[in-house]
């Protein structure tokens, strides 16, 4: 029996971490956004909620717990009620495999990162359940678009993911960290970029915010949800943002690697959380700085830019890495300049092509307006 007790305890710690971190992260998000919008955000004035309003999130959570749960008539009851649980559950399941340190991990299944990829469809279904069961026109609109966005961006996310896997020879997240003598973001900037953009779209962060689209369709698929049911979606969203930042840090920024980690293993989680936090900050900066893209723009970026680019990068890296290896550059550090140069070349070619296509579009627009003027 004691071993199962130990498992339960470890699981509890592992599951409590996202909740606790989100409490802090929501505060950070609100402060960062506020400052970017030239205001203060939660602070000491008004009702006291801790120094610098640090406990604001906790206060909001307690408040939302006491709000009435309104169930719209005609809603499909069980599906409606299950959706918040499913979305929160899928946000939490990811934490099983995040490597916090060389030996600090819930579990390291041999399918490692594939497990993380596979959790996303369940969150997607929670969204569909929410949109469908609310029987609300606006919820449905939000659902369709969100679904299209999420399934589309899974492809470049997965394809760009294949590249670090190629360099590692394993799906296991620990192996991915151990293989990064140099962070993969330095060696493979373009796949890292593709993955980052795809992941931003997957979590529904601006500029890819179709799911919520505040000003347009009220609140999209969770229009009909009140109180803590909405709170669950909100919580799940932030937990997802953080998990996804941690995964990015693991894949491309070296995870728990850092100075003195080997001597002091406890530094592992420190480095990971720091890096994850940085990525999260970048997500917040996106949120504050960027306007929302239209759904057709979003889908075009995915299918006409990111996916072809990911395919090209797969081919390029496969060839360059093999050639570098045959030339005798056996370690990652030795192959790094080759790979980086290849990335640079592809990047420059891409920018060139984009410029060309935008010039052509501009010429077409000029021709059209010229036609209009002539009449």
């Amino acid at each position: 029996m004691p071993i199962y007790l130990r498992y339960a305890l470890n699981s509890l710690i592992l599951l409590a971490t996202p909740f606790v971190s989100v409490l802090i992260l929501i505060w950070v998000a609100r402060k960062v956004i506020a400052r970017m919008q030239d205001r203060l955000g939660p602070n000491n004035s008004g009702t006291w909620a801790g120094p610098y309003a640090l406990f604001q999130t906790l206060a909001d959570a307690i408040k939302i717990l006491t709000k009435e749960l309104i169930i719209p008539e005609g809603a499909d009851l069980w599906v409606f009620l299950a959706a918040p649980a499913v979305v929160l559950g899928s946000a939490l399941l990811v934490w099983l495999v995040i490597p916090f340190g060389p030996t600090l991990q819930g579990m390291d299944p041999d399918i490692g990162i594939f497990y993380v990829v596979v959790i996303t469809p369940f969150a997607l279904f929670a969204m569909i359940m929410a949109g469908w069961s609310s029987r609300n026109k606006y919820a449905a609109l939000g659902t369709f678009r969100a679904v299209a966005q999420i399934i589309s961006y899974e492809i470049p996310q997965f394809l760009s993911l294949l590249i670090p896997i190629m360099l590692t020879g394993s799906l296991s997240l620990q192996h991915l960290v151990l293989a990064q003598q140099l962070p993969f973001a330095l060696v493979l900037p373009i796949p890292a970029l593709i993955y980052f953009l795809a992941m931003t779209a997957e979590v529904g962060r601006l500029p890819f915010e179709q799911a919520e689209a505040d000003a347009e369709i009220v609140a999209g698929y969770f229009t009909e949800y009140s109180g803590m049911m909405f709170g669950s979606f909100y919580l799940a969203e932030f937990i997802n943002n953080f998990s996804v930042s941690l995964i990015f840090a693991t894949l491309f920024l070296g995870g728990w690697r850092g100075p003195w980690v080997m001597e002091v293993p406890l530094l592992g989680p420190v480095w990971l959380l720091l890096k994850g936090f940085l990525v999260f900050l970048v997500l917040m900066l996106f949120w504050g700085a960027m306007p929302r893209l239209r759904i057709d723009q979003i889908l075009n970026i995915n299918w006409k830019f990111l996916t072809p680019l990911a395919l090209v990068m797969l081919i390029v890296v496969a060839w360059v890495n093999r050639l570098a290896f045959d030339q005798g550059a056996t370690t990652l550090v030795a192959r790094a300049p080759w790979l980086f140069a290849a990335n640079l070349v592809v990047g420059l070619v891409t920018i060139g092509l984009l410029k060309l296509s935008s010039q052509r579009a501009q010429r077409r627009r000029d021709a059209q307006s010229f036609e209009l003027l002539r009449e």
Partner: protein
Amino acid sequence: MGFDVSFGFEQIAFLLTAALTLAAALAMVFSRQVFHAILLMIAVFVGVATFYVLLGVSFMAGMQLFIYVGGVSVLAVIAIMVTRGFMGSDRPRPARTTYGAAIVAGSVFIGLAWLILRVPWPTVPLVAASENDLALLGQVLVSRAGFVVPFELSSLLLFVVLLGALYIARER
């Protein structure tokens, strides 16, 4: 045809998963609303994925979930939304065709069961599973003595599928 039924953790896990999956499948067939049927279908897919995990091929489980839950189920849901709009209409139970379908499904089940019980399945694996058997799978998939031709053909097949499906569904 000798079975060695040892009642360990694996047996319990298998029986539990089988029971839940079958229950979900039955509920799906008898459900009144199509949307519920799809959700139950996902439950069945998860059950199958669990079987793969219990068998030790977690990669297949991942593939199952990625393609079936992520792709096929989403397709099904979107198709439902096209044809039904909103009010998830109830399906009248049971229709005339249901009995015929039940008979066909029953016969297929009996036939397959008979077949499975008769085949002398090998108990020793064909290829020794080493430490990193996913890499081994990759090697087998691409090696000239392995499955490289089906590998490339599947790419061709996917190409045709993409073109065909989008052609049929294109905006006119």
